[in-house]
C-alpha cells in the first residue's frame, strides 16, 4: 500500500445489512470494516452468496446499511447516489440507445449537453476500439464489446471511486482474459480508486493492490492479502512464482471457509 493518505476514499464502519422478509430476518453482511485509500485497487473475493453485491449496493447508496456508517472522502456520507460510479455484472446497456448514447448516460443525467458529452466520449470510444460502433445498438455488439461500453459509461461518470461487480463474469474465458489485460494497461493511467468484486481469484490478484477474502454469509472480511507485485504488471505475471503463491494462499483461505459452510449445513 502507498503512504498513509490524508483521508480514506471509502470507509465502512461496522456496516451490517439485514433483509427482512415477513418475520424472517436474513443478515447477509457484516459486521464489516473496510478502508480503501485513494487510488487503491482493492479486490474482494468470496464464496457465492456472501453478500458481495450487497456490499457494493451499500457503498453505491442503492441500499442503506442496517447499522454502521459509510464514509466517503473522510466524511460520513448518508446520501451516496451519484457520488460513486458503479458497474454491474450485467452490462445493463439500454437496448434503445446507441453505443454513444449509452456511454454518455451519466453525463446526460448530470445535465451536460449532448454535444459536449459526445465530444468527451468520442476519443474514449476510439481508445476502447469502439469507434466504428458509435451509432450501433447494443444488440449488434458482442459480449466483450458490450462490457467495454459499460465500462466506458462507468468511467465517464467521472467519479473518483469505481465499483466493479464481476465486470467480466458473464464472458467466455478468452474474452475475459483479454479484457483483464486491457483493464490492467488502462488502469495504470487512470487516477481512480477501484473496488472490484469477483469470484475469479486470478483476476483479483492480477489487478489489485490488496485482496480481501470474505466469509460465507453473513459476509465478513476474514483475510487481507497485500499483492506486492510490481506495476506495471504484464499479463504473464500469472505464471510468476510469487503470483502462484499468493493465489494458493487465497484459494486455501476460500476452501477452508467453504468446507466450514458445508459442515455447518450438515449439523
Amino acid at each position: 500500500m502507498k503512504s498513509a493518505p490524508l483521508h480514506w476514499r471509502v470507509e465502512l464502519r461496522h456496516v451490517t445489512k439485514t433483509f427482512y422478509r415477513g418475520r424472517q430476518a436474513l443478515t447477509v453482511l457484516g459486521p464489516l470494516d473496510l478502508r480503501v485509500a485513494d487510488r487503491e485497487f482493492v479486490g474482494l473475493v468470496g464464496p457465492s452468496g456472501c453478500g458481495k453485491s450487497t456490499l457494493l449496493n451499500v457503498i453505491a447508496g442503492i441500499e442503506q446499511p442496517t447499522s454502521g456508517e459509510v464514509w466517503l472522502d473522510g466524511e460520513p456520507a448518508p446520501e451516496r447516489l451519484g457520488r460513486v460510479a458503479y458497474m454491474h455484472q450485467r452490462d445493463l446497456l439500454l437496448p434503445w440507445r446507441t453505443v454513444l448514447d449509452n456511454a454518455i448516460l451519466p453525463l446526460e443525467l448530470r445535465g451536460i449537453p449532448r454535444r459536449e458529452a459526445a465530444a468527451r466520449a468520442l476519443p474514449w470510444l476510439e481508445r476502447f476500439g469502439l469507434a466504428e460502433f458509435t451509432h450501433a445498438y447494443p444488440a449488434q455488439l458482442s459480449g466483450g464489446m458490450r462490457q467495454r461500453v459499460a465500462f466506458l459509461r462507468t468511467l465517464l461518470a467521472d467519479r473518483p471511486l469505481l465499483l466493479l461487480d464481476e465486470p467480466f463474469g458473464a464472458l467466455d474465458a478468452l474474452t475475459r482474459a483479454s479484457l483483464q489485460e486491457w483493464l490492467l494497461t488502462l488502469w495504470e493511467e487512470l487516477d481512480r480508486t477501484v473496488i472490484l468484486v469477483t469470484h475469479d481469484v486470478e483476476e483479483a490478484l492480477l489487478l489489485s493492490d490488496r485482496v480481501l477474502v470474505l466469509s460465507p454469509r453473513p459476509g465478513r472480511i476474514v483475510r487481507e492479502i497485500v499483492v506486492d507485485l510490481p506495476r506495471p504488471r504484464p499479463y504473464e505475471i500469472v505464471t510468476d512464482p510469487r503470483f502462484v503463491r499468493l493465489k494458493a494462499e487465497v484459494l486455501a483461505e476460500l476452501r477452508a471457509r467453504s468446507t466450514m459452510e458445508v459442515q455447518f449445513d450438515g449439523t
Partner: protein
Amino acid sequence: MARDRLLTRDRIVPLLILVSVMLGWELATRVFQIPRWVLPPPSAVVQALIRDQRLLLRHLTVTLEEVGLGLTFSVLLAIVLAIGIVSSRLVERSVYPLVVASQAVPIVALAPILLIWFGYGLTPKVIVVVLVCFFPIAVNLVDGLRGVDPEFVDLVRSFGGTSWQTLRVVRIPGALPAFFSGLRVAAAVSVIGALIGEWVGSSAGLGYLMIRAASQFHTDRVFAAVLVSAVVSIGLFWIVGVVERIALPWRRSARTET
C-alpha cells in the same frame, strides 16, 4: 430472401384461398339463384364500390375523422392514466378498477345515452371510439412501464438520476414496444367504435350509410361499406406497424442480428 420475389408460397397460398372463396361465393349466388338483396355476389359488391365511390368517400371522411380524433384522445387518456397508475399506489387502487369497469359497460346501451347528452354530432362517436380504444393502450402501457428491468432503474439511480429522469430515460423508452402493441389493437377496433356510434344516431358516416342502405335493401352497398371499413381497419393497423418500426429502430437492428 422472400422479399426479393413477389410470388412466393407465403403470398400465393393466401391469395389462392381468397380467390377460391370469392369464386365459390360468386358461383353459389348464381347456382342457387340467391336474390341480390339477400346476398350479393362479390362482382355486385365491386360494382357497388365503383358506382357509389363518391357516396362512400363522403361517408368515409366522416368516419375517419371520428376514428382519428378518437384514437388521438385515447392515446392521451391512456398515457395520463398509465403514468398515474404506475407512479401512485393510490391512483392505482382508485382508478384501475374504474378503468376495467369501463369495459364492462355495454357500448350499445351507452351510445343512446351519449346521444341524449351530446346530440347527433361528432362528440358521441368520438367518445365511443375512446371508450373502445383507450383500454388496450392503457393496459399495455401500464404493463410496459412496470415491466422495465429494475436493474436499469438502479443503474440510473446509482448515477444520481432523479425519478423523473428514470421515467424519461428508462421507463418510457422501455414501455414503447408494449405501447405500440396496445395501439395496434386499438387501431384495429377503432373503426368498430365509430360504426357503433353512428348506428345509434347520425346523419353521416359509413355506419349511417350501412343502416340506410340496409333499410333500402341495397345489400350490395352495405357490403361495399363493410369492405371499405375493413380496409380502413387493416390500413390503420399497418400504419401503426410502420410508425413502430420507424420509432423503434433498435428492435429492427436486434432482429437482423440474429
